């Protein structure tokens, strides 16, 4: 599977972890254009900061191991699995979540196509699907089937909406 090429999976924190709790500091995160200060351990996955600390629940937990893509967000436009991306690895990069992806032309076109073609079923994986698709269209505005396979095969949908996801990406690419 090729999806890992498109996805940044950071299992290890970049800077050395603070030696004691006293040294721990708040992290400043830029999410959907808004600055948030969070006081968590440096190895805390971004997913839990977004969902539990900041209460933005559009980004979903699926596997905790970068195997299903439900937690996909953009970090500086790159589709990233937030469940394995530690908070200390982000620095001042811009984070975008499903709540704001509609503000990008690719995100808006994809959301419209998703609705036009009635892609969703249970819907739980669709935040991640849309985030992966938006990164794909930003990088590759007219994706081939192979491009779609590469960018999207890291996103699992147990309802099996894949056929419509493919069609919706193609429709959005034509928009």
């Amino acid at each position, binding site marked *: 599977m090729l999806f890992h090429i498109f996805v940044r999976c950071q299992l290890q924190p970049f800077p050395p972890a603070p030696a004691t709790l006293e040294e721990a500091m708040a992290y400043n995160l830029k999410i959907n254009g808004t600055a948030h200060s969070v006081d968590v351990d440096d190895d805390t996955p971004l997913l*839990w900061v977004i969902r539990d600390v900041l209460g933005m*629940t559009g980004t979903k937990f699926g*596997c*905790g191991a970068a*195997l299903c893509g439900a937690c996909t967000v953009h970090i500086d436009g790159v589709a990233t699995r937030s469940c394995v991306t530690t908070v200390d690895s982000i620095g001042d990069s811009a984070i975008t979540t499903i709540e704001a992806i509609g503000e990008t032309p690719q995100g808006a076109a994809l959301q419209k196509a998703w609705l036009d073609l*009635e*892609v*969703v079923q*249970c819907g739980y994986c669709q935040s991640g699907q849309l985030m992966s698709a938006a990164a794909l269209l930003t990088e590759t505005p007219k994706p081939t089937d192979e491009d779609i396979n590469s960018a999207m095969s890291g996103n699992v949908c147990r309802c099996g909406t894949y056929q419509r996801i493919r069609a919706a990406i193609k429709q959005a690419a034509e928009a």
Partner: protein
Amino acid sequence: MDTLNPNEPTTSGNNTSRRTFLKGGGLLLGFALIGGTTGSVFAASAAQVTEEEVKAPFAPNGFIRIDPEGTVTLVMPMVEMGQGTYTSLAMLLAEELEVDLDQVQVQHAPPNDALYANSILHIQSTGLSSSVRAFWTPLRQAGAVGRTLLIDAAAKEWGVEPATCKAAHGVVTDASGSKHLSYGELAEAASKLPVPAADSVKLKDPKDFTLIGKPAKRLDAPMKVDGRAVYGIDTKLPGMKIAAIAISPAFGGKVKAVDEKAALAVKGVHQVVKIDEAVAVVADHLGAAKKGLEAAAIEWDDGPHATVNSADIIKELGEKSKQPGAVARNEGDAEKALGTAAQRIDAIYQVPFLAHATMEPMNCTVHMQKDSCDIWVGTQVPTLTQMVIASVTGFPKEAIRIHNHLLGGGFGRRLEPDGTVLAVKIAKQVDGPVKVVWSREEDIQHDMYRPYYYDRLSAGLDADGKPVAWTHRIAGSSIFARYIPQAFVNGLDPDAVEGAAEPPYALPNIHVDYVQVEPPGVPTAFWRGVGPTHNIFVVESFIDELAHAAKQDPVAYRKALLANNPRALAVLTLAAEKAGWGASMPAGQGRGVSVAFIFGSYVAQVADVEVGADGAVKVNRIVCGLDCGMSVNPDTIEAQIEGGSIFGLTAVLHGAITIKDGRVEQSNFDNYLPMRIDEVPVIETHLVKSPEAPGGIGEVPTSIVSAAVTNAIFAATGKRIRTLPVDPEMLKSST
């Protein structure tokens, strides 16, 4: 409260009503429906699904709520888990109520069997592909009751005969067409009229349907593409803590030792909770809770099932299936006919344990209070959950408030209240609300599994290849014996034999029986497609074996046996024709078929597969012929055929849960493989137009797809798949 998120839960006793939200949120949208003359106002919400219980003066039954501001709320007795039921059931109500779908919001029903029991399952349970079948008549009647009352209220206001008035798009109009009153304007007056009996109101002639049968947009779709949809796992409450959980890896094991100090040293961790079979670490966020759980370095006492393994389970099934079981069907004398048949065929089929692996891992939020308990969860069985928790807590069931949610997948997993029970046991030790979230590993290793089934079949053919005898013995765990014991009579599990006891074919001399064999310690439960997912694979594979033994074409062979089953014959003919059955295939490719009558629907599928020299199977195309009676939302039916087929394909090609040392060997999506976008075939659905009452759909494709694929593999390779999942090793070219 985020005004864009009406589903955001509030603490108990502090529910923000829908009306308050609409006023406060400023989301009232004005509709001037008839040339701007009515001034009527409809409140269409930005989010059409709400979990808040809506109070409104006009509430003639459990399903309809209309307030004076024109908010039309339809209460959904069944839960939305992707199958589109919130749209289909809303269509049934709206059709007769005479409102448009964009004028309504839907609400999760509270637990209440008296109001919301499913007439097929006799409980408020979303399962068995029964939602539309069970509510086809009750919801249309409920809508018609509402419409009748609103028309009566308008007629009374105008001093005319109700029969001279008409309702459409949420507005009642008089005979002249000059007077209009909106449903909102009529709500108060209509609420004071006596409610007619549901079976006394006249239902529309199907030819007058304006909604039913026409593709409708899903009401839950907009909120699922921008992160607004709220699942159980998204529950947010003031003061809520979040817990990670570790359950004994071995089934039936117990906690031996926990390093509480180490867990509590993790930043953000508040508490370590021990119950017999599990440890929970309670923290500010799941990141801290998981880290704390790891630090807790739990030691386990593996308990009585520590040596259980798959090989022994299968061996026991093989042995016990040699003995006769509880008889599901016996016609003619199958043994005698086998003895005198011109040709005899015997086979053993096996299907594995399967996990549900819903995308939303198991989770439940509980707020234990002195004499009551609030529960936020996504469940297929709200009343059953309420009853079970009443027994766990000792509270009366009225004191157990279940707040249901959209389900991030159900597939039968959320027919079980085990996750809620565990969360309640933990919450008993926690001050304030706590959300318990399972890791994916816990979710897969502590699922309740589709049973491993072991089937023995024999058939006798006459000189022309026609079957003259058929015996089928099914051995495996009984879910009914645990879940619905009153329906487990004389050792017969009706689910275990569903799809096997009544094949659609003319089969003289048939004997089908069932042997209950429980795998020690391994919990079993319903899985999408229930009995038929296993049995249709077996029956349709074996029929294919008979066609081959008779040297006949698999479609022609089936058609000859379906002469007296016109609807089954029609779907088979349709699928075969659309798939191009009979055309030659390139080397390494094959085409297979299966047909069944399941969940009240007739279905046939043709699969095209390609088998590589390395044994890898690629499914290229699935063509489905379907007669599910009258369609409610045709687009949802197609979506279910697509998704349900993929759910079945995942199982056929990849799905197996295996047991070693009393524990499940698989743990996440790297060793319990889901089908991904680069593997999926093109799936086509062709509907037979039918005037019959609707059949079920959600589980139909999952049940039918396996045999179509394995029969296609046989056509491509000459190798018969009798054990799932498909083993590519077995299909490697011998060259």
